[in-house]
């Protein structure tokens, strides 16, 4: 309380000017996010932005100063793909149509979602939140700050990229058995049809432009207008393409339609097409790195009983996402009602008790680590890449991805860039976030030591110059 009063007093006693108070951070070490490191530097913050950073920044008297000389400061991490803050996780899908390009997921964003506070505690300050994967063209992704004070402030941009999903996610759960033309009989129902749907939409948008140029009475169509923005290179396209064949399909479609700004998401098999990706300079957002169902030999269906019911949950096993299934059901087996899983997928690998309850299969190290190794291979081949889709338990966070990638050979400075400036650049939000530099948002993470050491703890998080988390007093290491 006394602290609060003091703060109020300071605020009152500061001469009223157009701009806010100055904040200075004395840091033991600063990782700028661009690969550069400064020992013992000062960061000057004003109005939520970084004014200056360096060893010779002069601290003005009377300003607020955080002495963090015992700590290490890095830019807030940027998660290039996330489903945080969307009610129901990836279930944020509009299933009425296969294509909803003009929808903005920002409109569904829940600023009160606990996801955001979790992300902030894990050092992620910027997220690119995507629509779900059930639509072929799902809509527009948004850039969100994890600052927990209302959508108006949190959503930094509501049109970061157009989201297109290849593979079998949009086909999963389609009613194969229902009558043609029936409610559940949505297209597509296969990998090739998914790609066809994309091609058709892109072509239709081009046709619409021609028609409209010739005939002014053709009404404006928001969906086609959005697709045209992407076709004209004004809106990047973020493609979910997990397998080698889907990644190659992205490159094929891009060439066919002259799409210049493409980003590949969740590319688990990116390591199999590094040369194509490097040649076309197509960036990749790597993650989730822990994808137990991925990697080794495809596993057989694990529960014949359920598969035999022939219901709509027949997913393709190599691609099923355990962490973000589209439907939530109570888990039948482990007995803990908080462990919610897709009932169609009896394999739970997220919780010990489910594994012990016999509903999980243990993936082996080689399978688990395939994407970890991929980060290194992509870096070595010169493919621009960033980490994305961190989990929210210790051991699977975005920062942990970087730690494990370093263990597998990725150079440390590049791992730090893949958490900060690289994903920011790939997502086109690097004018505001991703590095500690003059004019950038003051989004900072303060740690007890080298961020890539698993023993280092996050002790402070600042977003737009405001302290979101301060755990320095807890357990001073």
């Amino acid at each position, binding site marked *: 309380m006394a602290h609060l009063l003091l703060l109020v007093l300071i605020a009152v006693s500061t001469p009223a000017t157009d701009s806010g108070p100055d904040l200075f951070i004395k840091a033991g070490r600063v990782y700028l996010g661009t690969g550069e490191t400064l020992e013992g530097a000062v960061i000057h913050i004003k109005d939520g932005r970084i004014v200056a950073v360096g060893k010779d920044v002069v601290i003005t008297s009377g300003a607020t100063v955080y002495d963090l000389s015992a700590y290490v400061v890095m830019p807030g991490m940027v998660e290039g793909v996330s489903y945080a803050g969307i009610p129901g996780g990836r279930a944020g899908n509009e299933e009425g149509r296969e294509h909803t390009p003009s929808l903005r997921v920002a409109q569904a964003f829940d600023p*009160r979602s*606990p996801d955001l*506070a*979790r992300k902030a*505690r894990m050092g992620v300050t910027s997220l690119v939140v995507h629509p779900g994967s059930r639509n072929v063209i799902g809509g527009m992704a948004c850039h969100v700050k994890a600052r927990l004070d209302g959508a108006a402030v949190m959503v930094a941009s509501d049109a970061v990229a157009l989201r297109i999903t290849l593979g079998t996610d949009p086909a999963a759960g389609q009613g194969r058995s229902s009558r043609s033309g029936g409610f559940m009989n949505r297209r597509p129902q296969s990998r090739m049809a998914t790609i066809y749907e994309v091609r058709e939409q892109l072509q239709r948008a081009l046709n619409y432009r021609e028609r409209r140029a010739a005939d002014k009475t053709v009404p404006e169509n928001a969906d086609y207008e959005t697709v045209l923005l992407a076709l004209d290179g004004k809106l990047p396209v973020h493609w979910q393409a997990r397998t080698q064949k889907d990644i190659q399909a992205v490159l094929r479609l891009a060439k066919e339609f002259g799409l210049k700004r493409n980003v590949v998401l969740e590319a688990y098999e990116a390591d199999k097409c590094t040369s194509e990706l490097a040649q076309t300079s197509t960036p990749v957002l790597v993650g989730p*790195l*822990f994808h137990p169902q991925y990697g080794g030999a495809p596993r057989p269906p*694990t529960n014949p009983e359920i598969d035999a019911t022939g219901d709509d949950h027949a997913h393709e096993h190599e691609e099923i996402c355990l962490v973000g299934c589209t439907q939530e059901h109570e888990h039948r*087996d*482990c*007995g803990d009602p908080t462990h919610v899983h897709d009932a169609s997928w009896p*394999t*739970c*690998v*997220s*919780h*010990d*008790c489910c*594994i*012990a*309850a*016999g*509903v*999980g*299969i*243990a*993936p*082996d*190290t*080689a399978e*688990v*680590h*395939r994407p*970890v*190794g991929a980060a*290194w*291979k992509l870096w*070595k081949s010169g493919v621009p890449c960033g980490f994305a889709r961190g*989990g929210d*338990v*210790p*051991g*699977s966070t975005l920062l*942990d*991805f970087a*730690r494990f990638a*370093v*263990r*597998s*050979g*990725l150079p440390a400075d590049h791992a730090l860039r893949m958490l900060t400036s690289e994903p920011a650049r790939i997502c086109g939000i690097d004018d505001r976030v991703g590095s500690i530099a003059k004019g950038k948002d003051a989004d900072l993470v303060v740690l007890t030591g080298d961020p*890539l*050491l*698993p*023993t*280092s*703890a996050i002790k402070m998080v600042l977003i737009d110059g405001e302290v979101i988390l301060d755990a320095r007093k*807890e*357990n001073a*290491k």
Partner: protein
Amino acid sequence: MIRVLALILVTSIAGAQDLLVKNARVITCAGSDLKIGCVLIKGGKIAEVGEKVEAAGVPVIDGRGKVVMPGFVLPHTSAGLDGRNQNEMVPVTPYVSVLDAIDPSLPFFEDCLRDGNLSICVMPGNRTMIAGMGRVVRPWGATVESMTVAAEPGLKISVAPTSGNRAAWIAKLRAELEKGRRALEKQELEGKVGDNERTGNIALDLEAMGAKKRQLALFRLLKGDLRAHVVCQTAGDVLQAQKLAAEFKLKTLLVCGPNTWRAAKHLAKEKIPVVLSSTMVIRETDTETGEEIERIIPKIFHDAGVKFAITTSTGNLGGRYAWYQAACLVRYGMSREDALAAVTRIPAELIGIGARKGSIEPGKDGDVLILTDDPLSGRAWVEQAVIGGEVVYERSRAPRLAEVFGGGK
């Protein structure tokens, strides 16, 4: 016959049990580390640990720039069993044993070698009330018998209901133990058992008295000859487990899920050590404010003063490594020594193999890891795994690993 002889010959050569690791940093997990030191293993046992140790005719590993530490000990897992067959669906099956279910060909054991888990307490799953016998194994060997470190570490019991009502679950468990006690008393009255001094081996006595095999493990539990590894999922379960243990005079080891954290102070007061599951963090919602509260489980137990071992899980990128779990403990405020003990010495003690495993000390088994870096650096790889003085794993000879990992140094 000749082939058999040849095989025996080959194994006796390959299975040399003497080894000297020189010039490495030695983390003993027994109090005194050496910046540069040597570990001598003779006849499968650690013979000497010191700054300079010489031994003629013993194979030498030059550990320059490397770190030597004891193999990790997993105090509780069901991962060595086929994923879908870890639980009996009948609630009371004291007569089954993981001996019949451990699958030596599972990739899990290969992983254990790569990850340095050299002693693994495999237990039946958590769903069954009295779930059967566990076994401590090493991840090396073609048969369960040759893998065995300790044949009967304990009987698995779950006080956490996995079906029906909590009270009914406990009532049934109590009734089963009571039934066992009565049967045991009846047998004793009939003079079939009781003269323990005769052989000094309760198992033999029970067999001599003709006890049904089905009841044997339960009898041994009630006689205090076996430990019960009791799974608790809530703080209430912890109290129930304690009550049952007192009532039936059971020796117990509590295996605590994350939601038992409210019992931490109680466990500290009662000086009960526990095995903690791999889950580091749970989140609860404050019903008043709707705010999410993060509970860091090992920190709560550590701050309360509970002695604990922590296990790993196959369901998480970091959580599957004992070294990562230990690094998390340091992150949450524990000392290096305490954190490493929680994955080596303490689990070994708790599962009853403390005299043989869990630290590098003369007289203990020669189970050591040679790591490329400090275990808490996050960058360490197991370069060599040594079990009983025998090098059973070498990273340089694991091509599959190289293919997957690419750049790992």
